[in-house]
């Protein structure tokens, strides 16, 4: 128990003094996950909006696969991207394995299904209400997609936050394609895993606290977006 208190004390000190090791890891984690979610959002909005509006053969199957992939295990996403980027893989020439870029790609793979599936659902719900009115106004399919994405903006924000929550907290994908290399690809989650196994509880604990605070912040943002949207009847 004394050990634990000691570690907790050290952890807090690392945080309040902005320990450079800690800061480096936190910033890399944020950079990777924020970029991954930004890219995944662009893809996810387009895919989700199109799936809601366009009618084509196999549309139901695509939607079902997308929903199933929302639960894609991060290690599987990591393995998939690893195979793509490894020297013998189709994208091996790019030499991206064990770089932050590889981690971003893996997290994009992980997050796109979440954002796309939630976007599709939001757009379909709106379309049910808007369809006749928009067609009466002469809207083209692409104009309908644009209208639905804008009118679903608050639900899309929550989809993005859900995607970010998933990306920042996962360990499997970044571990496999990043390799947890010090100063290069060490993120909060991989560092926690490593430091804990080494018995270096203090840094692990400090990172754990930062991660927990990030999760709280995301959740708080989710709730305030919902409250704001329903107050304006935009939900």
């Amino acid at each position, binding site marked *: 128990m004394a050990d634990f208190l000691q570690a907790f004390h050290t952890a807090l000190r690392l945080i309040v003094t902005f320990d450079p090791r800690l800061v480096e890891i936190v910033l890399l984690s944020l950079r990777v996950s924020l970029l991954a979610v930004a890219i995944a959002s662009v893809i996810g909005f387009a895919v989700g909006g199109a799936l809601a509006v366009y009618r084509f053969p196999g549309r139901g199957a695509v939607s079902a696969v997308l929903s199933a992939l929302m639960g894609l295990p991060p290690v599987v996403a990591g393995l998939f991207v690893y195979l793509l980027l490894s020297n013998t893989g189709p994208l091996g020439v790019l030499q991206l394995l064990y770089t932050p870029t590889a981690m971003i790609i893996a997290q994009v793979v992980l997050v796109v299904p979440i954002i796309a599936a939630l976007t599709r659902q939001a757009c379909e719900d709106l379309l049910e209400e808007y369809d006749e009115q928009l*067609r009466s*106004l*002469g809207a083209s399919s692409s104009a309908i997609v644009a209208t639905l994405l804008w009118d679903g903006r608050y639900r899309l924000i929550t989809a993005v936050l859900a995607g970010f929550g998933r990306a920042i907290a996962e360990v499997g994908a970044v571990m496999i394609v990043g390799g947890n290399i010090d100063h290069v690809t060490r993120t909060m989650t991989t560092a926690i895993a490593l430091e804990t196994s080494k018995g270096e509880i203090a840094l692990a604990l400090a990172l754990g606290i930062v991660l927990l605070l990030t999760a709280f912040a995301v959740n708080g943002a989710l709730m305030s977006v919902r409250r704001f949207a329903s107050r*304006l009847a935009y939900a």
Partner: protein
Amino acid sequence: MLDQTPPNETKASVNGHGPLLPLELRALSFEANGRRVIDRLDLTIDEPGITVIMGPNGAGKSVLLRLVHGLIAPTGGEVFWGGKRLDRELARRQAMVFQKPVLLRRSAAANIWHALGLRGVARSDRAIRVGDALKLAGLERRATTPARVLSGGEQQRLCLARALSLEPDILMLDEPTASLDPASTLAIEELLIDAQRRGIKIIVVTHDVGQARRLARDVVFLHHGRIVEHQAARNFFEQPQSDTARAFLAGGLVL
């Protein structure tokens, strides 16, 4: 029955690019789940003003309006506007107001702006037309209010203002006041009478007999997907020809 005008006789449109009237339905049918909702309708509407489509619930009034507007495709027969089949160009000259106001999750002004954008109105003209439309509906002070927090009456007025901002030749309304209070209903009716004076052809579905009396130039009475009567309003209300219309007007239950 009204005089049947030959199909090729046409009338000048408000905007002057090819006439939309007469509206002609030839053996128009619509089936859903094996049930004939609209049953081989023949109808010609060639006079301006307000045409009211009446009939008991389930008569097929709303479906008829959607067929005529091109929102759904008939399973049989055809719709002609000014002798031509409905195409994109003709559809652009129509506007429709639905029973339940459908408003985007944006401000009142942005709703009208969006509709004008879909119709390809230049940005420079949009602001003026948005302002005019809001003023017409008495909603100037609500311009920046989220449309969906407006009252029911304001929402429907906004829908009507949005439709009128498109400067349609034909305006269709499906039970526009079915869930509104008398004051809101009156506001809508005044807007319709005013629009009709400016030369917009109006087709309105209602089962409110009082409203039909106040608005109609001619009445199409529908029952079980068939046209029972099409008469000038005065004749229809004073001497309905059919038992169903007589019962309906007397406030009886028409099954």
